[in-house]
């Protein structure tokens, strides 16, 4: 079949559709008036729920920090403060993602818009990576001056190495949780399930877009 024949076939398909298609004006008008909202399928608002839960959690931590600070040890205060700062950054990144999603302009050219969408989707990984930075606080909150004074060996040879290890692990995950490691076994084990599949696929789609752009 030659090119012209293929084009003609498509034209005949178009003519067939001209005779057979009709639009339901009632639904069109409803879509315009956004009456749709009353009859919507359950909205996909998990992301907003996550933000609200995150904000409530931040408020709770801040409340405890404020009230505990006067009588808790400096180590607890600093640990909780680090946890609070990292959580604020993570929730902030998540809110920024939602704002950017709402600002997406679908009338942009296809490659540009799809690239933005895929990058936004995969940026959820960055939020997870940032959360790993608070890893060491799980081993710093229980340090106290009594431990340092009375059991220096336990402090220097057990507590500090654990803090150092968790710091190393936290920084390692922060640096390595990205789409470059998508095919690594540890990554696949860590990000397993339907929700993650969509994010991981967005990484592949970014590659597909780059390939398409090259020609």
């Amino acid at each position, binding site marked *: 079949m030659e090119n012209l024949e293929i084009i003609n076939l498509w034209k005949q398909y178009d003519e067939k559709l001209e005779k057979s298609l*009709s639009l339901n004006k009632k639904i069109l008008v409803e879509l315009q008036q956004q009456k749709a909202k009353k009859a919507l399928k359950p909205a996909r608002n998990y992301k907003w729920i996550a933000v609200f839960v995150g904000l409530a959690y931040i408020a709770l931590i801040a409340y405890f920090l404020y009230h505990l600070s006067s009588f808790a040890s400096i180590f607890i205060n600093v640990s909780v403060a680090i946890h609070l700062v990292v959580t604020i950054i993570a929730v902030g990144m998540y809110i920024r993602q939602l704002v950017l999603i709402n600002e997406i302009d679908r009338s942009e050219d296809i490659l540009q818009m799809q690239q933005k969408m895929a990058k936004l989707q995969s940026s959820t990984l960055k939020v997870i990576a940032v959360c790993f930075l608070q890893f060491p606080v799980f081993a710093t909150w229980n340090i106290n001056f009594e431990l340092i004074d009375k059991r220096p060996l336990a402090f220097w040879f057990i507590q500090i190495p654990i803090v150092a290890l968790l710091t190393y692990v936290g920084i390692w995950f922060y640096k390595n949780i990205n789409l470059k490691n998508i095919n690594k076994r540890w990554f696949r084990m860590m990000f397993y399930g339907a929700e993650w599949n969509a994010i991981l696929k967005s990484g592949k789609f970014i590659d597909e877009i780059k390939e398409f752009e090259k*020609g």
Partner: protein
Amino acid sequence: MQQVQKDFLEIIDANKRIIFKICNSYCRNAVDREDLAQEIIFQLWKSWDRYDSNFKLSTWMYRIALNVAISFYRKEGKSTETVLMGDQLIEVAEEKLEEGLEKNLSALQQFINELKPLDKALIILYLEEKSHKEIADIMGITTTNVATKVGRIKDQLKQRFSKQD
């Protein structure tokens, strides 16, 4: 109904075949097609007040429709939040082409269905006889790139039909 709403309805009515063809190329089943058609029209309406008449209406429309279709396809047909339940937005009456043409059309649709989402967009625009310049504007690639890619897909298509013959 306001004039702007009427104008929009007219444009949608005049372009319903394009919307249907895009939905048909990106969705295999009728439920997904219906969801996608509603989502495309909803997004077109949402962007309607931002449409700049200095640009070609068809370019604007194809960009939105194809962007929505590709995103929908990537979500694997999960329905969107704008979908109304109940009646069908696009109703299709039974209409057949002659047997040979119907067979070729079905082979062509099958071929399009098997393409990657970006290649699907490209071949639809080619079949709609858009110029390389307009395809490049819609896709966001160079005209040279359009020519290369269209040529490659056409070769694959010819091979498919020659095997069928």
